[in-house]
């Protein structure tokens, strides 16, 4: 059978990490996938070596527009470890609360995008409308909807006031009701089930050997979560459960994230209630003692790891950042083998990549060398149409 190569992307850099995939397909079936990165590689690791530790907080915040708080938490923890300081208890709770709010907004955003990929635009609109609720809370606490600027070396910059808790609770209970409703939809609604059940399989053995992280790993039944395995901030003082599902498909990835929204809401409630009083930051020196530290956090998309090395000056010698999407690319390539062209968008969406709009898709017929260029929109239409006919 003749094989056709389909380059997918690179995409428009409206969001993070445009990426290019070359798909080799036999008729409708994908037989091989090769990813190519770097279309908006910004050289942040090199930049960080030329900035002071404090300036880097602002740089690191801008690695990602969605999980910016996870990155600054990871970075500030590494610096604090080298400085040998323990941040105030209240700051640890505020970090936990903000991190969970970030998770809630990320998972709502993701739910909407995944719904859109399946052609279910009503759910997309609903999920994004509800996401506004948590963004309003984040704005109330930090003054910003994204890139909250909450973290600083030695603690956090803004307190969560008692006058806010009532409003937060109102919004949390709304988000909780909605998440319950979406869970019902995603387990019963045929349009969702037909597009997600049994699609994009990642067996537990492959998930482990390909080093998958986060909800992608937990949807293959493996209970690994940095919050539980290597507790940071106040996670060792807050009860929560690590959500897993065993079906290993896109449907499981949806349910893991909806359940995580519900878990996050409980964490926020518990932390707000049990937050100790006291200062929210300590003063820290400009220079950081010689040494090295490895810091991990559970970002909404999975394990985030930073390595920091200091030579005793006010600038790092090396800062290494590995965001969860890079770890989930080899597992993604595995999931894409054997799927239909029409399922490509929803399987890619399934790992919650930092990938924006598919700008164009190029179809190459290896026999005739004929090239057809498709827009991402056209691929999306094609996949909806393909399922309609089926």
């Amino acid at each position, binding site marked *: 059978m003749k094989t056709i190569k389909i380059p997918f992307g690179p995409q428009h850099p409206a969001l993070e990490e445009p990426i290019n995939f070359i798909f080799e397909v036999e008729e409708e079936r994908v037989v091989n996938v090769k*990813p*190519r*990165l*770097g279309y908006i*590689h910004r*050289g942040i*690791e*090199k930049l960080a070596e*030329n900035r002071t530790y404090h300036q880097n907080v602002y740089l690191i915040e801008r690695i990602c527009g969605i999980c910016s708080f996870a990155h600054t938490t990871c970075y500030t923890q590494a610096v604090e*470890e080298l400085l040998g300081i323990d941040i105030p208890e209240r700051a640890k709770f505020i970090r936990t609360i903000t991190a969970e709010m970030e998770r809630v907004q990320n998972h709502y955003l993701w739910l909407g995008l995944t719904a859109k990929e399946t052609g279910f635009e009503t759910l997309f609109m609903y999920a994004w409308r509800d996401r506004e609720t948590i963004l309003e809370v984040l704005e109330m606490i930090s003054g910003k909807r994204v890139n909250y600027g909450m973290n600083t070396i030695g603690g956090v910059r803004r307190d969560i006031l008692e006058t806010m808790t009532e409003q937060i609770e109102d919004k949390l209970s709304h988000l909780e009701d909605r998440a319950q409703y979406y869970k019902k939809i995603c387990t019963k609604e045929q349009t969702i089930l037909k597009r997600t059940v049994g699609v994009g399989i990642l067996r537990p053995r492959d998930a*482990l*050997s*390909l*080093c*998958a992280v986060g909800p992608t790993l937990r949807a293959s039944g*493996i209970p*690994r979560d940095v919050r539980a*395995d*290597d507790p940071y901030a106040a996670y060792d003082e807050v009860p929560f459960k690590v959500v897993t599902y065993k079906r290993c498909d896109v449907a499981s990835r949806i349910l893991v994230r909806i359940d995580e929204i519900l878990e996050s809401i409980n964490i926020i409630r518990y932390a707000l209630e049990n937050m100790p009083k006291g200062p929210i930051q300590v003063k820290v020196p400009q220079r950081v003692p010689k*040494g*090295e*530290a*490895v810091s*991990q956090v559970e970002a909404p998309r999975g*394990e985030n*790891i930073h*390595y920091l*090395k200091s030579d005793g000056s006010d600038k790092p*010698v*090396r800062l*290494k950042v*590995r965001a969860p999407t*890079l*770890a989930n*690319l*080899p*597992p993604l390539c595995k999931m894409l083998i054997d799927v239909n062209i029409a399922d490509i968008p929803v399987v890619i969406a399934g790992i919650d990549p930092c990938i924006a709009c598919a700008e164009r898709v190029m179809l190459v017929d290896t026999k005739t060398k004929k090239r057809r260029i498709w827009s991402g929109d056209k691929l999306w239409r094609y996949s909806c149409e393909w399922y309609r006919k089926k």
Partner: protein
Amino acid sequence: MKASNLIESQLKDEAREITVPRERRMFIRIAKENLRKSMKKLIGLEGLTHLSTITGVDVGSQVELIYHIVYEDILVSLKVQVSKEKPILPTIVDLIPGALLYEREIHDLFGVRFKGNPDLSRLILPDTWPDGVFPLRKEWTPERISEKIEDNHENY
């Protein structure tokens, strides 16, 4: 046996230096000849083993590679050094398939070649990037890189 003791006893022949800066962290220095042997021992342990990433660090005439491996609740950082003159290391992709993109990233940014890696094509740097410029090596300052890229664009 505690996970940390287990790792220590497994790698007692290979480890040249073990440091434990805090709870749940371990740095182990090994010779590059023992990389694959040590890696096999770690992934052979019963329980979950996971490669988080590989970090490259410029340490002067050498490039230090740090393999961050999570075993149970411990994050083990396995360190090897390779000279900039002859930056060749054996691949671990056949042992841990998840290492594929991390090795390619290091290959792009530090110029370390991994013997046995099936695909060391560019992953991060653009196709027009000048050969021999490894941006995360210290001798390549941002100014030198910009100069080189401008030259390259003129000739391209």
